[in-house]
């Protein structure tokens, strides 16, 4: 019965979306407050209806209702409760429902925030923005009704009325806590991008294209950025721990699909500051947020349509066409609005000099958008190459690794140069006061790195030297910013330096939160440089008692073990880890054999990771033979990943900075 109620709720929400779109448009057109209110209520109604549908599906999982198609597909009676619930987004139609539900939460929050705000002022911007939100909701609602080809209703039962004794269960690789939170985190990040996009459309529709819409949607954007940062990193961390190939990023189409909106969002967070400060780039900002939103759909299209083959098994599911149509239709809509409002989109100011804060922002934007396009190019290369010469080609990971280095290093330099260069035009005084010392310190840092790398045998590590130079420069520049600001505050308020620092950040959380993010970026870069540039990989077939060497480390296989757990058998080996002859620990890589694995599921590799400071030793096994104790051979792959721990720290600092920045409540204009 609950499943039927859920299905009915989905059908009804088609109506509530239409109601919201119709009444809001009509009400705003004829300025009828009651019609507008009715439209807002419909947005809330959609939220309630989709919550009912989602709740009904979760109920189906929890009660093991194996008459439901979707429950059979991704759940099973023995699946732990947590994974029964996360099965909600374990396959396509459920994840679309989940996506839709998050979107309705977003819509409801916009209505709520608007209600709070309208106690003081009457402003229709949010009401205009609810229309695009409802349109996107309508699109997803139609997808999950099951009325169109390619996707079935997640609440549907088997048409022939069959009831299975048990479900197929979720893939065992996904049954880890990280995988329970990684997909929803990314979804939340993507979906919250819809809101600033909707505000941009609302601004165009209402004709108020000042910075009002940006101020209103700014925290949504930051929220989205923080969540995307976390979500992408969780995915990398999961791959590192679970997949046994020793890396965290492989430029897979699905990874790229999550990374491109992040890059565009980052560009947007910077370019809006110019609009606030100098009233420039109005059109650009609208295009940028539109692009960021469209890239979340494009990502879905790329990964779900089957046009790009990826390691993530999506197959040609036939829904790609709907996404592509929606992307075209909504982009056309935005372009139409832009043409309609063309006169109001002109900049009030012009760029005055090539060396100014404005151009630093602009360069940042060009590079970020450029990187996005490069990654898109590489991701779509199979299609592009087929169109050009009739033959499908692909580019490997190496393409991306090589092509992002130079724009990436320029961007790194900008994270330090941007905050200290003066507005309008750089002056000799500005250069001397702000740039000279950080540049000198940066050069020393670069030289030291060069010396160190030469010492351990790398003769001409150009990119590492440049990266270290830029990194040290940025840290010096930003610390100097904090130092100068804190000292000034302390002097003015006649208090200690620490208090001054605290006051400085409290008074301008967005700006200094941003600088903390920049420090996080530097840390991240150093981690990527070390782990991508200097990792060591050794592989060896070994029997008990043998050892292998990875760099300065020696791994000796001393024992094997087998242990039974609730739903899997863990078998593995024990390594003694020694550095320069001294034992520093043990490692226990293993294989998990799930008792209830499906025929297409292999045992999973559980790699062992041993941290030595920020560096990791990483060992994975292919198999643990039955006869291991009597001379059976184990295949071992061992990595030394220098500075990889710094990658996670860098991201943590970025997220921390984001949280500081998002704490700035006021809608006042400010920032860097």
């Amino acid at each position: 019965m609950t499943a039927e109620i859920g299905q009915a709720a989905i059908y009804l929400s088609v109506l509530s979306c239409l109601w919201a779109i119709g009444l809001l448009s009509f009400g705003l057109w004829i300025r009828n407050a009651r019609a507008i209110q009715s439209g807002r209520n419909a947005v809330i109604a959609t939220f309630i209806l989709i919550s009912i549908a989602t709740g009904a599906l979760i109920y189906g999982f929890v009660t093991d209702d194996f008459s439901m198609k979707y429950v059979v597909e991704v759940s099973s009676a023995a699946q732990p409760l947590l994974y029964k619930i996360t099965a909600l987004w374990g396959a396509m139609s459920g994840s679309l429902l989940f996506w839709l539900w998050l979107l309705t939460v977003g819509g409801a929050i916009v209505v709520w925030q608007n209600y709070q705000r309208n106690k003081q002022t009457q402003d229709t911007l949010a009401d205009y923005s609810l229309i695009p939100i409802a349109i996107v909701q309508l699109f997803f609602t139609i997808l999950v009704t099951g009325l169109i080809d390619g996707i079935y209703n997640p609440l549907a039962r088997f048409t022939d009325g069959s009831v299975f004794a048990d479900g197929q269960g979720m893939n065992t690789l996904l049954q880890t806590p990280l995988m329970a939170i990684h997909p929803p985190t990314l979804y939340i990040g993507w979906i919250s991008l819809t809101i600033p996009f909707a505000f941009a459309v609302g601004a165009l529709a209402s004709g108020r294209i000042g910075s009002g819409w940006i101020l209103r949607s700014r925290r949504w954007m930051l929220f989205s950025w923080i969540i995307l940062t976390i979500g992408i990193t969780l995915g990398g961390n999961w791959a590192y721990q679970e997949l046994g190939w020793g890396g965290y990023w492989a430029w897979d189409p699905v990874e790229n699909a999550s990374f491109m909106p992040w890059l565009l969002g980052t560009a947007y967070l910077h370019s809006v500051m110019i609009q606030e400060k100098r009233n420039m780039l109005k059109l650009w900002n609208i295009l940028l947020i539109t692009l960021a939103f469209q890239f979340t759909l494009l990502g879905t299209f790329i990964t779900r349509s089957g046009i790009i083959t990826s390691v993530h098994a999506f197959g040609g599911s036939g829904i790609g066409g709907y996404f592509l149509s929606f992307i075209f239709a909504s982009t056309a809509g935005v372009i139409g609005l832009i043409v309609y409002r063309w006169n109001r989109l002109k900049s009030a100011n012009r760029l005055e000099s090539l060396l100014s804060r404005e151009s630093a922002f602009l360069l940042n934007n060009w590079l970020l958008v450029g990187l996005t396009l490069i990654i898109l190019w590489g991701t779509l290369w199979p299609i592009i190459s087929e169109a050009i010469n009739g033959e499908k080609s692909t580019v490997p990971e190496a393409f991306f690794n090589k092509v992002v280095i130079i724009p990436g290093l320029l961007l790194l330099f900008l994270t330090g140069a941007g905050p200290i260069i003066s507005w309008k035009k750089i002056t000799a005084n500005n250069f001397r006061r702000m740039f000279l010392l950080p540049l000198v310190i940066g050069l020393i840092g670069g030289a030291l790195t060069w010396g160190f790398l030469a010492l351990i045998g790398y003769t001409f590590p150009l990119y590492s030297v440049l990266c270290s130079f830029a990194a040290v420069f940025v840290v010096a520049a930003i610390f100097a910013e904090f130092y100068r600001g804190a000292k000034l505050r302390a002097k003015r308020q006649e208090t200690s330096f620490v208090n001054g620092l605290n006051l400085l950040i409290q008074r301008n959380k967005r700006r200094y939160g941003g600088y903390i993010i920049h420090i996080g970026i530097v840390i991240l870069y150093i981690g990527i440089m070390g782990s991508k540039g200097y990792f060591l990989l050794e592989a060896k077939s070994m029997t008990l008692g043998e050892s292998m060497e990875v760099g300065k480390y020696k791994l000796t296989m001393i024992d094997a073990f087998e242990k039974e757990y609730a739903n899997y058998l863990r078998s593995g080996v024990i390594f003694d880890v020694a550095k320069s002859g001294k034992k520093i620990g043990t490692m226990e890589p293993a294989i998990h054999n799930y008792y209830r694995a499906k025929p297409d599921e292999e045992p999973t590799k559980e790699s062992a990771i041993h941290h030595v400071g920020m560096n990791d030793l990483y060992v994975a096994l292919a198999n643990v033979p039955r006869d291991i104790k009597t001379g059976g051979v184990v295949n071992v792959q061992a990595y030394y990943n220098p500075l990889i721990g710094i990658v996670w720290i860098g991201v943590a600092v970025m997220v921390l900075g984001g949280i500081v920045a998002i704490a700035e409540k006021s809608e006042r204009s400010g920032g860097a």
Partner: protein
Amino acid sequence: MKKRSRLKIVAASTILLGGMAFLVVAMTRSTSMRYFTPAALVAAAGSADDQRVQVDGLIAEGSTKWDAANFKLTFAVRDRETEATVNVIYEDRLKPDNFKDGGSVFVEGRYDATQNLVVATKLMTKCASKYEGAESAAPTDEISYTSE
């Protein structure tokens, strides 16, 4: 003065965009590899010999040999539609997770036409999340083993 600075801005943007475009084209040229199904690769053997290629197919049933002592994996990739197969050798690397007879596999490596063999540098099996189409979602025979 105004004019000159605008000119400088235009010049700088052109250099930046041109540089990025050049980088992309150069890197695409140097790293791009042709993508084949096993049938297409066998058909194009002559032109693909000694080139880096990517092959997308299924792991042929019963073809997998895992030589643990020498850390060597050999198997054949079968075409999804025809009977064509291409042999693959993959050394000194772990077998990826989800490597199973009949499973999807991408092979990257250099093709040797005389032996119909790809010396693989990278293997990818389909990863875990199962966003298949609607048809495969209706469990029929595959589910029967759990309901017994």
